């Protein structure tokens, strides 16, 4: 579902965002810390548990998620949907992925005028509060602003 190029894109210094919704359709979302594409094609998004307890509860309830990946310098944006999301623990070796991702993201946005200290505050990572939301992308959409926005690529 996710081709190699898209898989590579979402694992560079892009913003990683995740949303789910409750039974009434009310969404909840969080700015994720990083993501990883697993060997079986599933995507794992790393989040802090405390700020998104309701998001995680919704994931457990329905398994439906939407995730948006955007590169600030180019606005290139991709949205992935999943119907089988579940919550897993985070492997300690994934901490290096999170650290590297945050560093790359800082390099992306500081030239756009956001102070580094603010970015690192928003993307603070408490290793004891981490969770991964893992899902199989069932739809992939281009969301880069412009004429192709909303186009399904898979």
């Amino acid at each position: 579902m996710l081709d190699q190029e898209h898989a590579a894109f979402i694992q560079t210094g892009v913003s990683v965002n995740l949303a789910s919704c409750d039974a009434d359709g009310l969404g909840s979302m969080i700015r994720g810390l990083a993501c990883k594409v697993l060997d079986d094609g599933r995507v794992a998004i790393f989040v802090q548990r405390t700020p998104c307890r309701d998001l995680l509860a919704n994931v457990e309830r329905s398994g439906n998620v939407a995730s948006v990946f955007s590169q600030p310098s180019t606005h290139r944006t991709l949205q992935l949907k999943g119907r089988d999301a579940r919550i897993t623990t985070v492997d300690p070796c994934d901490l290096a992925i999170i650290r590297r991702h945050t560093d790359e993201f800082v390099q992306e946005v500081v030239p756009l005028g956001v102070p580094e200290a603010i970015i690192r505050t928003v993307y603070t990572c408490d290793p004891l509060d981490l969770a991964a939301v893992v899902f199989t992308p069932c739809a992939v959409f281009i969301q880069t602003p412009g004429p192709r926005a909303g186009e399904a690529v898979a």
Partner: protein
Amino acid sequence: MTPRLETIRECLDGVIPGLIATSDREGMPNLAYLSQVQFIDNEHVALTYQFFNTTRQNVLGGSPVRLLLSSHLTGAQYRLTLQYLRTETAGPIFEQMKAKLAGIASHFGMTGVFRLLGSDIYRVLAIEPIPGPTLAPPPPVNYLTALRRANRHLAGCGNLAALLETALASLADEFGIAHVMLLMHDEGRGRLYTLASRGYAQSGVGSEIPVGAGVIGICARERTPIRIGFMAAEYSYGRTVRDGLAADGQADALETAIPLPGLPEARSQLAVPITAIDRLLGVLYVESVADLHFGYDDEDALVAFAAQLGLAILHHQHADDLADETPPVDEAAPTPAGPPLVVRHFAANDSVFIDDDYLIKGVAGAILWALLSDFVERRRTGFTNKGLRVDPRIRLPGVSDNLEARLVLLQRRLEERAAGVRIDKSGRGRFTLSVARPLQLVEG
């Protein structure tokens, strides 16, 4: 504790783009970036409608709406629950958002892509802070104290010229605003003319902008503050004035000989209408070369300041119509010596040239020509506003003629030209003409 929306407004300008979550009827969530959120009041915001996308489809389908907003000052994050009310495609909110979006689009290389189709108005149902670390905010600026002091300065002014000077000085001293222009509204001609400025190499007094052109012109047309945090080429006044001219085919009527003041690289712009008793009197315009220099608090403070300034302007315009009881001292002026000053007048547009250099046109040009003619014919130096009002040579445009403002304009142009002709106030509703060189008046 639930924060009030007005206390987290820095989250709305999109420095850290916010996110909007909706869902479809099957319970599939959708997530998208927001380019801006417009503050309306503590219960209402507006979002941009730029494309018919999944978000909009979901919203129109009745989906609940959630926003995630982040402060670029503290890193604090908030979740807002919204209820869609309606879409506006014209009017003050739409124009405010359109101007702001143009700046954002330019900043992010999206000019031509970001286009405002409508302003979606939402009710804010809930605001929840998201748990997480935050940084201490920058030291606050006390706008109320600045406003109180600035308004006190205005109260001490005895006439319109002093009021304008004091207003600009107060913005510099109390608000730290270095670049400012004050433009008056010429209702009859649909123009704004610069009457005072501060922080520029050339004052630009007398330069004009059509109502509707650029940040200043749109502010005047909509009578609403327009604030841009990033440079937007299509809202720069140089370009918009040119475009405006081409569009309305009135290039000959606009003052173009006097260049507009302004920072060529202004990145932050804020224009605030000056109104009084439901009339647009003018526009106060401030700018900065820094991105995001003016926030919502600056806008609030300047709107409040402009309200006070508007009433004061109105007061001085009227007060100057009531001349002092003492008659004007109209001693015959001594005959000046030296080489003659050639003053040429073109009746078609009342333009006046001094020694072949353009000085002014329109009503102010007609006034000057009348004063100089009286001086040459009768050595007259004392004049009153009342007298000008009934002078058939001047043809003031009706009740809201801004006579006092036009006299200030003329006074400043003469001062800047320093050619030996000046006018000075000599009392309420009266002024004197001083001529330092012999005059040679030439018609046409």
